[in-house]
């Protein structure tokens, strides 16, 4: 492992008026890792993602990516540094084709000359060449999640943040999606940070897990450590369930 973490979040705090959505969160993601971010609904996972990727400006704390302070930087500048993301509720470009959607991302690093080659490469990678001409509003959920992943991949990121990419997928789709992420991690050395509710995906995919509850980190560890952690079980199931 490299000494320097890929992503380092220090004491990050994000408030909405009086509501503290993310409170003093500290964690890091090392190069080549797949880190899972889990927690009950409303724990602040998506808010944390938004604060990291520049969609929200945090009130306090610091986000460092590859040694550069990116706290409060505009999203497009963070993307230029090599970090992109997907969204919890798919936000595909409804009236655009799959190919054109991917092209928007591909322009991040490519000029007019080599953009098509990049689009073709990414579509091949996620195995969507057969539906490249389809309009996004015609696609099912599994394809939409792949389109979002593809357009983020086209920006040539070193790190991807996936917000509940597994939600709503059936077992077959989930397996394929996990295999794809593993392939990208292993063969293309992309570091991942994933917010996930689907435990099958978290346990099968992640090297390390960070658990959030009410905006605070309550545990960090390997999947095995986390699944045995008392506080995590309490957070998910309540105290009584643990005592019984």
């Amino acid at each position, binding site marked *: 492992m490299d000494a320097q973490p890929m992503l380092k979040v220090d004491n990050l705090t994000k408030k909405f008026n009086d509501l503290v959505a993310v409170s003093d969160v500290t964690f890091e993601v090392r190069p080549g890792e797949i880190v899972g971010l889990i927690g009950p609904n409303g724990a602040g996972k998506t808010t944390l993602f938004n604060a990291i*990727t*520049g*969609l929200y400006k945090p009130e306090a704390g610091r986000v460092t990516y590859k040694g550069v302070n990116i706290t409060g930087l*505009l*999203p*497009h500048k*963070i*993307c*230029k540094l090599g970090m*992109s*993301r997907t*969204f919890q509720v798919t*936000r595909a*470009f*409804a*009236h*655009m084709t799959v190919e*054109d*959607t991917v*092209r*928007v*991302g591909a*322009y*991040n*690093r490519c000029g*007019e000359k080599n*953009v098509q080659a990049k689009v073709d490469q990414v579509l091949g990678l996620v195995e969507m060449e057969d539906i490249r*001409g389809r309009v996004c509003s015609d696609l099912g959920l599994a394809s939409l999640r792949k389109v979002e992943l593809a*357009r*983020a991949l*086209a*920006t040539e990121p070193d790190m991807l943040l996936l917000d509940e990419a597994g939600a709503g997928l059936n077992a077959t789709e989930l397996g394929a999606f996990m295999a794809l992420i593993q392939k990208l991690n292993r063969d293309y050395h992309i570091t991942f940070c994933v917010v996930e509710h689907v435990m099958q995906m978290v346990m099968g995919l992640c090297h390390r897990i960070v658990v959030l509850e009410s905006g605070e980190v309550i545990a960090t560890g390997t999947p095995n450590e986390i699944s045995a952690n008392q506080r995590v079980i309490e957070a998910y199931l309540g105290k009584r369930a643990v005592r019984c």
Partner: protein
Amino acid sequence: MNAKTLTSRRNLFLLGGVLLAALIPLALGKNQYAMVLVTTVLLYAVLATAWNIIGGMAGQLDLAAAAYLGLGAFTTGTLLMRWNITPWLGMIVGGITAAGLAFLIGFPLFGFKIKELWYALSSSALVEVMRVLFLMWDQVGGPTEQYLPAGLSAWYSLRFNNYVPYYYIMLVILIAVLILTTRIRYSKLGYSLLALGEDEDAVEVLGVNSQAAKLKALMIYAFISGVVGGVYACLYGYLHPSFFSTSMSMEVAILGIVGGMGITYGPALAAIVMVSFREFLRANLGGGMEGLYLVVYAVILIVVALYQPRGIAPLLERGIKYIKTYFGELRHGRPADAESR
């Protein structure tokens, strides 16, 4: 599908259209009213095509076309009246001035991500602000018409005694703007704008600077409108603050929407159909029923909004496809599979 033959066939169609448009004055040249009409159609076609960049592609409902057009007109006219600078140069300066205004307006609006209704209201207010400003500004504007001088030569001061030259100037501008918007549509800017029209946050995390992209779009649109404004001033032969017209701005946006948002030739098509139709109605219903043409116009809008919300361009495309399939069937005995996507 063979893309190359398709493009070359499309180019052939375009060439045919251009030739046809170029021949119109030969047929109508003597009829002044008809020439004003076709020139007006082209004027709206240019404005609506340019509007498509900011309205159709970037999805910003801009209602300020006449603010830029008027500024271009006043710049061109003032340069001619005061310093005898030819409108050929004046309209370029007018375009640049309009683009400068667009920068001043767009920078804060896009920085604060003003969209939809709020953007529409702000841009609409701009037209009114400009109108009042030029009404009060006696040095260049004022409440009375200022007639442009005829000057030494018609070509130098762009003051002709018939409408045919204006028609050709407008046609050349339209062709140039159509080529430009098609270029933009299939470039980084075009794809970014189209995506921005759908979901701004999602585009920004893909590395697109939304403020810069929209600002570019607005400035290109304003530049074109400003240049057209220069021709507009010469065409009418005078300057007046009524050039800053809210209803004209509205109509440009309507043409852009009816034509098909983001489809490059859609707004021009809508201008040809709708403006001709409007003038036809005005001429035929105008006598006894003043203003009735607006009612008919409104009904068309509602019908389009209800049944063809993506505009009339997709309808035309479907029609052409249908005809192609129909003739394909006649020739081959079955539908052409290659055409289906």
